[in-house]
């Protein structure tokens, strides 16, 4: 940013959506003045101009004070992050055993991945895979030292990859583990346009941290919105002194990150993964994707029709967003969230986050309470968690501010505007089925609310954004809610969805029959979806 600006645009330009937010310095602190998201195809200049025109219409004085002029948009500094089509990495190894950790690292670092080992692909099929023009880079790896099952195949694998590198000099090649010994086969690597890089071995125990950093750098440019959002999350965790989890479902990928506050340490502790297969709708929705979406769908569609609708959603992500289209998006988003959790299994290490932030275009037009329900449907964690939504897609642009102190100052000022509070979800686990599991009394400023806790039910307590309350749970039998016990006092915060007491099974059990499952999902959804036409 320029020195001492009065306002700036925060732009997040994705493959499907261009989002612009106007942030201005008013009364000595940064405030969010407006935000607008439109199909990416219209271009960010149109989005910025619309935003400025609306500001001028709403408050000409303020617009003049910050120098907002639709004819001189470039006078206002911009902080821009982008995300685009994922790059494709072909991962090869000598054996299936050594392929698995390499593939896991590749899948978690924002690459679209194709893979195969010498044990399952003959050299012709492997050459075909690596020479595919859609492949941008090749990761060829082995254990270090190599295992007995891969030792014999390494020289031939090295020769094959070196020949591919010669035929496609533009291809980036990463050699990992013991396969780095084959470097001599690649000749003068400095003379070719594509890099040949050497990385550490990925093993099932270490997750190949050094290798992950290397291939993340190759997968995503420095101004990538997802990388920036992860930096923004670390600052947010530090500012709030809370463990914060970010889950983004976007057009081309899903992101999951968990950040802990530094609490005096030098570096924030952040774990993150960018999963291409967790995109809202993959380019070619296969049967597994279809099954996942069908599980969450409230629409009366057969498999073929559902696949058609998913293809349409992929082709025109902004179209058909109301009515049935909204329900389809939510089903696809839940399915994508499920894929994201599956691919990042074990990331939370059993420690519940204090705050979960939802992001990405999948939730862009969904009503707030429904976002909370969708997350609660899939995350299924016993305990109490607060939920919020990065409604203006600010986490990325603000996370891209290079100067840590400046980023922290801007995010601190914007703390009240940055996230929309969706509410709190309390999920006890281990409830015994029966008519009543106990009583809940919510003590808030507006009075006490008493609720009978019926196993399998979803109970909603009105708690406006900004309000806090104490939820006093008294169960008949011992349950898990953070710890194990029968009495719990939980401090909860309000939001668009208020307080959601989720007494359903952990994990969630849905009826097998589609019609009954749909009816069940609709019933849960109807309780939180204002304006739902049934």
């Amino acid at each position, binding site marked *: 940013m320029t020195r001492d600006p009065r306002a700036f645009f925060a732009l997040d330009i994705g493959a499907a959506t261009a989002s612009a937010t106007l942030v201005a310095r008013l009364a000595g602190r940064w405030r969010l003045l407006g935000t607008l998201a439109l199909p990416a195809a*219209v271009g960010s200049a149109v989005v910025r101009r619309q935003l400025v025109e609306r500001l001028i219409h709403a408050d000409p004085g303020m617009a003049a004070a910050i120098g907002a002029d639709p004819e001189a948009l470039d006078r206002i500094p911009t902080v821009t992050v982008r995300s685009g089509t994922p790059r494709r990495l072909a991962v090869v190894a000598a054996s299936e055993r050594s392929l698995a950790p390499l593939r896991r690292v590749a899948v978690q670092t924002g690459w679209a991945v194709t893979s195969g080992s010498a044990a399952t692909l003959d050299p012709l099929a492997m050459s075909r895979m690596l020479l595919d*023009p859609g492949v941008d880079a090749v990761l060829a790896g082995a254990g270090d030292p190599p295992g007995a099952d891969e030792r014999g195949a390494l020289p031939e694998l090295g020769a094959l990859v070196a020949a591919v590198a010669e035929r496609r000099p533009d291809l980036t090649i990463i050699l990992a583990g013991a396969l780095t010994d084959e470097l001599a086969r690649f000749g003068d690597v400095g003379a070719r346009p594509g890099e040949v890089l050497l990385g550490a071995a990925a093993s099932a125990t270490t997750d190949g941290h050094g290798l992950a950093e290397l291939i993340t750098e190759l997968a995503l440019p420095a101004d990538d919105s997802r990388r920036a959002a992860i930096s923004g999350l670390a600052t947010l965790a530090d500012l709030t002194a809370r463990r914060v989890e970010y889950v983004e479902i976007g057009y081309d990928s899903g992101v999951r990150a968990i950040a802990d506050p530094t609490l005096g340490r030098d570096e924030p502790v952040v774990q993150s993964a960018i999963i291409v297969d967790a995109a809202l709708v993959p380019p070619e929705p296969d049967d597994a994707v279809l099954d996942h979406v069908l599980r969450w769908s409230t629409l009366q569609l057969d498999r073929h029709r559902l696949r058609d609708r998913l293809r*349409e959603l992929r082709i025109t992500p902004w179209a058909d*967003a109301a*009515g049935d289209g909204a329900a389809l998006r939510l089903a696809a988003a839940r399915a994508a969230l499920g894929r994201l959790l599956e691919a990042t299994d074990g990331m939370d290490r059993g420690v519940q986050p204090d705050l979960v932030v939802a992001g990405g275009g999948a939730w862009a037009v969904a009503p707030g309470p429904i976002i909370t329900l969708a997350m609660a449907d899939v995350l299924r964690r016993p305990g109490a968690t607060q939920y919020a939504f990065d409604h203006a897609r600010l986490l990325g642009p603000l996370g891209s501010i290079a100067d840590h102190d400046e980023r922290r100052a801007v995010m601190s000022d914007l703390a009240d505007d940055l996230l929309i509070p969706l509410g709190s979800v309390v999920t006890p686990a281990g409830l015994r089925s029966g008519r009543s599991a106990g009583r809940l009394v919510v003590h808030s400023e507006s009075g006490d609310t008493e609720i009978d806790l019926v196993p399998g039910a979803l109970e909603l307590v009105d708690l406006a954004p900004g309000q806090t309350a104490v939820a006093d749970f008294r169960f008949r039998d011992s349950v898990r809610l953070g710890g194990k016990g029968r009495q719990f006092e939980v401090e909860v915060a309000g939001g668009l969805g208020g307080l959601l007491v989720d007494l359903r099974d952990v994990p969630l059990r849905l009826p097998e029959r589609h019609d009954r499952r749909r009816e069940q999902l609709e019933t849960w959804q109807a309780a939180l979806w204002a*304006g739902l036409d049934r």
Partner: protein
Amino acid sequence: MGGARPVSGLAPNGHAHGHGLDLVPLRSLVEEAVDIRFALAPGDRVIAEEGSVVTVGVQLAERFRDTVLAATTVPESEDARPGERWTPTDAPVRRGPSRRPARRTGGELLFPWRDGWRVASGEHADPLEAPIGGIVREVRPGVGIVVRAAGRALRGIVALGGPTRGRLKLAAGPSGELRPGGLDVGLAGTILVVGARVDAETLTRARAMGVRGIVVAGLPSKERRDWIASEARQKAALHRLPPFAVLVLDGALRRSIAGPVVGLLEALEGREVAIVNDPPALVFDEPDLDVADPPPDLVRVRSGPDAGREGRWVASLGPRRFAHGIQLEAAQVRFAEGPAVVPVGDLERFCVVSPRAE
């Protein structure tokens, strides 16, 4: 529009925006200077040379159906490199009285291994002929050939089968559908524009009758899957039919072909066009053909229950509430049946050639 009734009266800022047409994504009717990629696999034999000018029907390569992996030795005097063709210089020795020349099998060098080379070679070659004229910009054995097309291209979302070439014929109205009974052998050699949707049975029959290609607005997933399976079976057969391709213009659901696209296709009727896969497009080399600029306020519902409807832009309305309480940017559009409020995200508009991307 059905399923998208406005609930709120005015935009939050108190009035209807008088303009705002630029909120609607612009779709270009034609693209110029398009680079077309023809995919090759290891073992395929390249014939075209980089930098050469190709005309329609010129053979670019030979694609092999049943490539296998073999091993060979290359004399040390040869400077062999991966991707090069290799033909044994010495014919295998034949015994007996046969006068037929011995078959010399060769292939593409994949990588050096031990004292020789791994080779990809095949028996049954299919010619890959240029469906378009142009300049060969890139040749990469085993990867692909890129040709800068001499003509212009109308983009689709996917092209299956192909590449192919034929005379364009409008076989159904923009919102119509072609059934198998509507096909006859007189259509052999044509590329048919078949309207809103087509089924796999019609596609299979069209291919069998010598039709070269189909252009359609929507191809449902089931029909797509069935046809791909049928095409795979046909490709495996010994007797091959001429190349056949399906160009899908919009998506998987039934909808009319866009008016401006219909205008272009009507202008091209009776002329030779090609369907190519990468990018999926209908390519035509007609320098004298003037493509009319669509009216600037013409908008089309791209997707959703009213997909395919066209109308005139009236005004941007700002955020409005639609079915299921979903709040979206809205616009007023005048359709033939009267004005309606439509989410802006459902709309698209057209221009002849798109302005430079941001």
